[in-house]
């Protein structure tokens, strides 16, 4: 099996082992898998199903239930626009719209050249900095419309 030679599978194996290969380890295992692979590819889901002795349908069902899990790879850069209530009433929807328009993708999609993923978040918990967006793990608050686009441009440079 190829899995044995790939170190990333060993990371997943480690989490499952720590939790005693119990069925309840599924969500924790999916988190580890996403951390190491960047997203949950089908082979990984099948691997987890086999190791935890769960039907594949169950693993797929759980992976698609939670927003946090991605089944497609992310782009090279990401822009996460917070759409929590505080951000919303301070115009986050306009920020998201303008980014969607400029890059021709909807929230949750990646540009064709795989350079940018646009993500809308439920709430990043930094409401006092509303509206806020996270550019490649760097949160920037009190954004204006112009800034929000400029920051993405800076990323893509």
């Amino acid at each position, binding site marked *: 099996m190829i899995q044995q030679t790939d170190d990333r599978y060993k990371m997943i194996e480690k989490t499952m082992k720590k939790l005693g290969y119990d069925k309840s380890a599924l969500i924790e295992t999916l988190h580890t898998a996403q951390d190491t692979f960047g997203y949950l590819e089908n082979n990984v889901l099948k691997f987890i199903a086999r190791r935890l002795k769960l039907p594949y349908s169950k693993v797929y069902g759980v992976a698609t239930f939670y*927003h946090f899990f991605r089944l497609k790879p992310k782009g090279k850069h990401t822009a996460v626009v917070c759409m929590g209530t505080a951000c919303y009433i301070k115009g986050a929807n306009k920020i998201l719209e303008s980014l969607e328009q400029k890059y021709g993708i909807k929230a949750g999609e990646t540009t064709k050249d795989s350079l940018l993923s646009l993500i809308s978040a439920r709430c990043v*918990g930094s409401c006092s900095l509303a509206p806020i967006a996270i550019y490649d793990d760097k949160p920037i608050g009190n954004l204006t419309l112009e800034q929000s686009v400029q920051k993405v441009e800076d990323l893509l440079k």
Partner: protein
Amino acid sequence: MIHSIEELKELAKKRKCTEDSCKDELRVCIGSSCASLGSVELAKELTKEIKTDTVKNKKCKIKGVGCNGLCSAAIMVSKYHKKLDEEIIYGGIEKEDKEKLKELIVDDNILSDKKLDMKTSFFTQQKKIVLENAGIIDPNDIEDYISYEGYLALFTALEDMMPSEVIEEVKKSGLRGRGGGGYPTGLKWETVAKVDSEQKYIVCNGDEGDPGAFMDRAVMEADPHKVIEGMALAGFACGATKGYIYVRAEYPTAVEKLNKAIKQAKKYGILGNNIANTNFSFDIEVRLGGGAFVCGEATALITSIEGNRGNPRQKPPHLSDYGLWGEPTILNNVETFANIAPIIRNGGEWYASIGTEKSAGTKVFALTGHIKNTGLVEVPMGISLRELIYEVGGGLPEGSKLKAIQTGGPSGGCIPEELLDTSVDYDSLKAVGSIMGSGGLIVMDEKSNMVEVARFFMDFSKSESCGKCVPCRVGTTELTVLLDKFIAHEAKPSDFELLKSICEVVKDGSLCGLGQTAPNPVQSTIKYFEKEYLEGIKND
């Protein structure tokens, strides 16, 4: 390892030290808002640079602390004079102020223009119990927590109290569930304590899904040991030996701090087997959520910990009989657990004396939206919304006028300006059509369109509906479609009646709290801002 209350007190005294030789502290806030402005790097650089300066290094210690509350004044730094036991807070610090901060250690007159006035209502009207250590202690250091009476409640309970006495204190305190439900905590504990079962569980709900709320995040990041202490006390009171903290994966810092705190507590013998040489054993694990709002619902959260899709189930059986893995389980919110240690330390009567008769104690609110002092505040229950907004919150920014206040997130409602004198407690907020909720409080100015606000929340509930029951799954979708018509000014007169009746159906027919409360934002805006709905109707 700490084996007894004497050893605990000894350690606290040693760390507290008020002698001349003891170091002052420069506390840099590393809460989420300050961190996004670079406070973490600032704290690191200061620590590094001060090491080489023997005078300053001897005099002061740089400390990264959790959220200080006034996020609108980020970055916040405070200087603590150990000998005088006095703290001076500075706001609006920038990374460029690094050199000045270093000077501040030896010269109190530096940065006086950024000194915050501690006599303003923002500071004086607050009463800190849950947040008593936030902004003061280093969340990575268990000894720092111990020096501020940390784990004193647990050790007192273990050495001098019966489990029933702990429950009695919690009952006396009048503490109600801070997740928003408001169920009396003591009663919940008593029910589980009475059940005869070999295995029981304590679960802490840290899945703060309500958009616009970040209270629990701040508590977990600033004072993780307090949550652990509260859970251990619950375990002792109810005969449980195992606890789980369910945290959103979107809060990586909170997860990190909690895991670190659990590890330290184990090392110090505060978690594990035979704590303080008694026969009480307790262990805690952190479990990650996956960003599903419905997992804040009790039965959904439990099934998610078991590794399943977070679908809620019918109640009864309640968690007290059939919870995690079918065993009796106590599920409380982060803030509820954070209230426990102070209650045991100071007594239930002390806690009951704060707040109102039916809603005792304090509540933490996340003030956001069109308000000057955005951030975290902890106020006694019974304060009026007016005081909360205009005094603690400093009012709205110049030039904007208040239109409504939203509490309770997608399950709550909008309260109009006329009702500003409503008291902040579980029952009064419910009476005006909103709910206390977990503590998100969003101030909206007159530019906000209330139908759009209602649609925003409905859209949220729609996509967060787990899909198990029809009224919620179909109802929320239909409501979103209808609200869209109102926003586009294309609704028919009959649509208004339809909107109201679907709200009733979703409310009465849904399986769990998500569906049952989802119509609240629509119903409350219809109640107070009907005109805006009527404007959306096209009369042919």
